[in-house]
Structure formats: C-alpha cells, structure tokens
C-alpha cells in the first residue's frame, strides 16, 4: 500500500522538539532503556504489557483493521509489536524461551514496523471499551512514539506542529497580527450577513471568559462556521469573552506522542494566558483530543480545574469562578444557556438539513460533559435538537461509547497517510450511508477539528459531498436570532 507510512521527521524538525536529528547509533539500547523508564512511570503501560491474554475481544474493533484488513492493525497485534519486545527484555520466559512466548529482539525491522503501525493508530480508545482488562492501545501507541522519538525516529507531521505551537502558540503557526486580521475580517462578514455587530475579541484584559479553540477554527472550512457560532452565542448571552494570541490553540499534539513534558508545556500557555488576562472562566471550542486534554489533564498539568491544595494550582484556582466548571466545553456553555432560555433560536433555519451526529472518539471515550456519565453524548444532541427540527442517529453500534473514529485522529491527519485515512473512515462512512439512504440525512454534525478536516477530505472518496460535515455550533449559528434578545 502507498501512503501507509508517514514521512520521517528531518533533523531540523527533530531538533525543534529536542529529539535527536536522525536514528542514533545506539538506538537499540536507548530504546530499551527508554521503555524501561516508561514502564516505571506509567502504570497503564506496566499493567497492559502483562495483562493481555490474547482473547481476541479487540480483534475486530479497530476502524483501521476493518478498513485495511491488515492483521497488524488488530489492536492486540499492534500492542504485540511492543509487547513481544517487552517480553524479550523485561520478562524471564522471554529471556529464556523467546519462541515459546512470542518474544522478539528489537531489530531494525521491528522498529520499522513500530514506525508504520504506531502511526496507523488514532488513539481513539475503541478497543479499550471491549477489553476485559481495559487495555488501551492508545497508551501503548503513545509510549511507542515517545521511544521512537527518543532514538531519533520521529514523525514529520506531528513534530512540525509541536514545534509551531511551542514557538508561536498555535498549530497552524499563525502569528498574533495575522490572527487579529482574520478575526476582524470575520466580524465584518457577520455584520454583512446579519446586520449585527458581533465581536471577536482577542487579548482583552479582564474579560469574563477565555475561549481556547483549535486554530483550524480561524481559517478552515467548515471549522470557521462554528467559531462564528460561538461568537454569536457569547454575543446574545451578553458575556464578555476573549481569545488569546499567546494561547491560540486548544489542540495538544503532545498527547499524541505520549510526551508528558511537551503536553504540559503546551497546556501551560493556556494557564499563562488565563493568569495574564485575569479571566474568570475558561471555555474550550469544538475539538476532540483537545477536550480530552482540557477536561481530563489540564487540572493535573496546569491547575485549570478545582480541588487543588498546592500553591501552584491554588494561584489559578482562586482567580477562576468556582460556580462554573473549569474548564467548560462550549457545548456545556451553550446547552446551559438554551436550558435557561437565554438564546433565541429558530429551528426552521435548519429545516433544509436532516442532521446526524458523529461522536468524536476522544470526547466519547476520554472525557465527559455535564454532571453525569454519558453527558458527552446527550448534551451535543440536545443542542442539535434545540436548533434543528430533523435529527436522526446513526446505528447504535457506531455511536456513543462505540463510536468509530473519523480515521484521522491522533496525529494521522496528514496526506502522507491518505490511504490509511480513507480506509480508516470506512465504518463511519457505512453508518452514514445507512442514514443517508434510509432517512435522507444530508448533514453530519461533529465537535472536533480533526473530524471536520478528515471528513472534508475523505467524504468525496465515498461519493458524499464534502459540505455534508460541519460543527454543532454551525447549526447554532444558523438558528440563532441576533438582535432579538440582547
């Protein structure tokens, strides 16, 4: 297959994220020693290396396996690429009788397989739902990528982005002035469209809310439609808000590479922006992995959250308003406003659409919204039903906690991997086709920048129109009646 292996990062890219520029001479020893370190730092990896019994529960659950039929894309086989090496170097039977227990030396061929197959995992956690021990291949993939990076065998796409966000503040590498230009252009567009002056503030000291959103929202279609939606919601609710040029990115590719320090450095920009601007609330835009990092990791990494009892977290937490969830998802925010009747919505504005909803993997299986488990499935759907008359769900085994990844998550969203992306989208495309045929669905809403970019690219391969995909707040944007409430 072509396009199944990403480009290797060159020396310059590697240096910009503090990894060796090329495969180091003693890569074998370095890789094993890094694996040993990670086994001591992550209980997940430590337990997952031992606990698998090869029962087969996960074998038919991965969208890349379903799409490619490559047996090495079965979650257990992907894990086994690392587990066989773990057994060889860290367990007694693997040292004594490697053939019997499936233990393997770390050869260059094995390392090449790592590079190929740990970049055909989108860290979507679907396999972990079905594993009797909760083994999460994402954890193994992250560790493998960290080991690959440590020996100088990094992936170009992800590492380039990691360099940009740490230098400039967002994944697209947009400097502050370019961002300001874009935002004022969008303000003009909205005013032309609606006759109402809706602001897109940036770096406003003392604003109530800091909005952190994926940088794709500033430039890409259909992402920007949701950004317009957020702005209209803030406008009608009369809540002061701001973006930050220092922290103009919600996406955190540090997660994809399993590098805690990098993930923390990137998240720290948001803490810094919140402290500098003096905001009371932090709200996160439509982005899947970003919401995972924000919801599940920000409190740990940066103190954005509640319940901290150390000076580092208290410094920020005493500034944030404890009456609100910190951080809050934009869908939680809009949903609360809808429930309080604070938004004037005209459902008929979306009557030309028959809408379905794609649960993004990391929102579904690695985070939550609202007070109860599963709120991440209910809240976006309730928003859609409040702004549109026609809503249909895709088949049950393809939504909720069983949702299929779009095929482009976890650092796979690069054209080097186009074939993998197209094939990985197969299960979602089949589910979409079913509701298209049966219910005439013509719009798939989702709340992830990667899902939006991935579907825009792969929908045409399956005979769909690329404009079928869009954000939940794109629907909100079309339904909200500006000038009627404020």
């Amino acid at each position: 297959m072509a396009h199944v292996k990403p480009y290797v990062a060159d020396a310059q890219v590697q240096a910009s994220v503090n990894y060796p520029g090329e495969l180091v001479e003693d890569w074998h020893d370095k890789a094993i020693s890094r694996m040993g370190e990670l086994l001591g730092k992550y209980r997940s990896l430590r337990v997952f290396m031992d606990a698998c019994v090869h029962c087969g529960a996960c074998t038919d659950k991965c969208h890349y396996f379903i799409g490619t039929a490559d047996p090495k894309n079965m979650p257990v086989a992907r894990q086994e690429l690392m587990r066989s090496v773990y057994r060889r170097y860290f367990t007694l039977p693997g040292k004594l009788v490697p053939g019997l227990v499936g233990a393997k030396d770390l050869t260059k061929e094995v390392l090449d397989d790592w590079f190929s197959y740990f970049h055909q995992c989108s860290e979507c956690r679907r396999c972990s739902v079905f594993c009797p021990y909760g083994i999460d291949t994402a954890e193994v993939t992250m560790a493998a990528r960290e080991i690959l990076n440590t020996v100088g065998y990094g992936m170009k796409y992800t590492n380039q982005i990691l360099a940009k966000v740490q230098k400039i503040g967002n994944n697209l590498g947009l400097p502050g002035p370019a961002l300001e230009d874009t935002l004022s252009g969008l303000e003009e567009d909205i005013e032309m469209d609606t006759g109402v002056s809706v602001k897109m503030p940036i770096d406003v000291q003392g604003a109530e809310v800091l909005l952190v959103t994926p940088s794709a929202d500033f430039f890409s279609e259909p992402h920007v439609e949701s950004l317009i939606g957020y702005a209209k919601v803030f406008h009608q609710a009369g809540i002061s808000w701001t973006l930050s040029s220092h922290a103009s990115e919600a996406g955190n590719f540090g997660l994809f590479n399993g590098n805690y320090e990098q993930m923390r450095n990137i998240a720290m920009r948001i803490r810094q922006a919140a402290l500098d601007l003096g905001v009371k609330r932090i709200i996160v835009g439509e982005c899947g992995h970003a919401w995972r990092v924000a919801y599940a990791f920000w409190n740990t990494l940066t103190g954005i959250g509640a319940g901290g009892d150390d000076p580092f977290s208290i410094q920020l937490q005493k500034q944030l308003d404890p009456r609100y969830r910190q951080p809050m998802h934009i869908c939680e925010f809009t949903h609360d406003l809808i429930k309080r009747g604070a938004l004037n919505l005209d459902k008929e504005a979306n009557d030309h659409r028959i809408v379905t909803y794609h649960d993004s993997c990391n929102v579904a299986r690695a985070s939550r919204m609202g007070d109860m488990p599963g709120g991440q499935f209910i809240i976006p759907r309730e928003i859609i039903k409040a702004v549109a008359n026609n809503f249909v769900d895709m088949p049950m085994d393809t939504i909720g906690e069983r949702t299929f990844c779009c095929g482009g998550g976890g650092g796979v969203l690069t054209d080097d991997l186009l074939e993998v992306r197209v094939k990985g989208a197969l299960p979602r495309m089949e589910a979409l086709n079913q509701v298209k045929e049966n219910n005439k669905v013509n719009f798939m809403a989702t709340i992830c920048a990667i899902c939006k970019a991935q579907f825009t690219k792969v929908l045409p391969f399956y005979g769909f129109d690329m404009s079928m995909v869009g954000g939940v707040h794109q629907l909100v944007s079309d339904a909200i009646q500006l000038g009627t409430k404020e």
Partner: protein
Amino acid sequence: MSLLTIIYAGLFYAATVILVGGLAYRIYEYRKTPAPLNIPTTPAPITPVGAKLRVWREVLVFESLFKSNKWIWLFGFMFHFALALVLMRHLRYFTNPVWEWVVLVQPFGMYAGFAMVAGLLGLWGRRLFVERIRYISTPSDHLILLLLIGIGASGLGMKFVAHTDIVDVKSFFLGLMSFNIHPLPADPALLVHLTLVAVLMIIFPISKLLHAPGVFFSPTRNMADNPRDKRHLAPWAAELEK
C-alpha cells in the same frame, strides 16, 4: 518416606513460594508505578466507589468482554466460574474439619469440573479455528490452555473414573501445611494432576496469568471520572512544578 513424597513435597513448597512471592512482587510493582493522568475509559463512574464497583463487575461478570463478543464471554465465563467452584471444593483437602460452606459447595464443585473443561475446549476451539485469534496466538497460549485442560481432565478422571486414595492425599497436604510430611499415594492420575498444578503455580507470576491481579490495577477501569474536581498528580510529575 519415599523419594516420590519428598519430591512432591519439595515441588509444592517451591511452587507455593514462587506463586505467593512472585504475585506479591508483581502487585508491589503495579502499586508503586504511578498513574500520572486520569484515563478512565468513559463513560465512567464519577466516584471512587463507583469505579471500584466497575472493577468488580469486570472481575465477576466480565462486563466489557460481554460487550465485545458473546462466544468468548460464554466460554471464558463458563471456565472461570467453574474454576472458582472447583477451587472452593478443593478447600476440603486443606481444612480439617471441612468448613461448612465448602460442604455446601461440594456437589456443584464436582460437576463444575465438566463445565470448566468444556469452557476451555471452547476457548481452544476459537484459538484454533477463528482466523483472527489464531493469528495472535503464541505457542504458550495453546500450552496454557492444554495445561488447564490436563488439570481438569486428570481431576475428573480421579473423581469419576479411577478413584485415588483421597484420605491419603488430604493427609499429605495437611501435613505439608504443618511441616509434618505424610506419604503421597503413587497414583499416576494424581501425580499428573499435581505436577500440572505445580507448573501452573510456578508460571503464574511470569505469564499472561497476571491478568488476574492486573485487572484490579487497570487505570482505564479503576479510576473515577473526576478530573475537573480533583487534581491527580504523580510524584514525578509534581517535580516538574518545582
């Protein structure tokens, strides 16, 4: 005392030390390795008590496996549940007088042996004939199943085909427990049974049988979904804040 008795006494002392010591060491390792980030597979319980219950549902009814595949669940559950009954029944050889609840379990435990072997054969059949599972199987996966089938079959053989002198067997094990060794009957089925059990005990802490303690330590199952309300911080991660 016969050489045979000495060999089996030594074997079981060694196997017990390896099983208990090995498992204790593994559990120590799992405990001391921090879980630096909150990673429950969601939707997850939002309280620590709820997370504990989730783990116990995995242990007792194989909740996630049930979601995945009804055949693997059926054979896996049949084997493990039957094994539990069989193990309970075997307590009669290690207690004097036999505990009352063990007496109550006795009839179920006897026939559970058949369910156990049937479950194992089902699992092995899948491993042999389902292509995906055959692909991921190592030789040790087959051998461990064979080992367990051998234990079950030799045990059933002694119960239902050719009886062994169970009174002597009991006095051997009670003797081992009080370091006062009594002779072991030289019955082939018994010797096969005991040898295989000792092998199982020895490989337990160095094989995939570690899924038994592992499931209790799996962060995707035992962590509560409460990261916005509680700050999780591993010791090595806290160092980064200094």
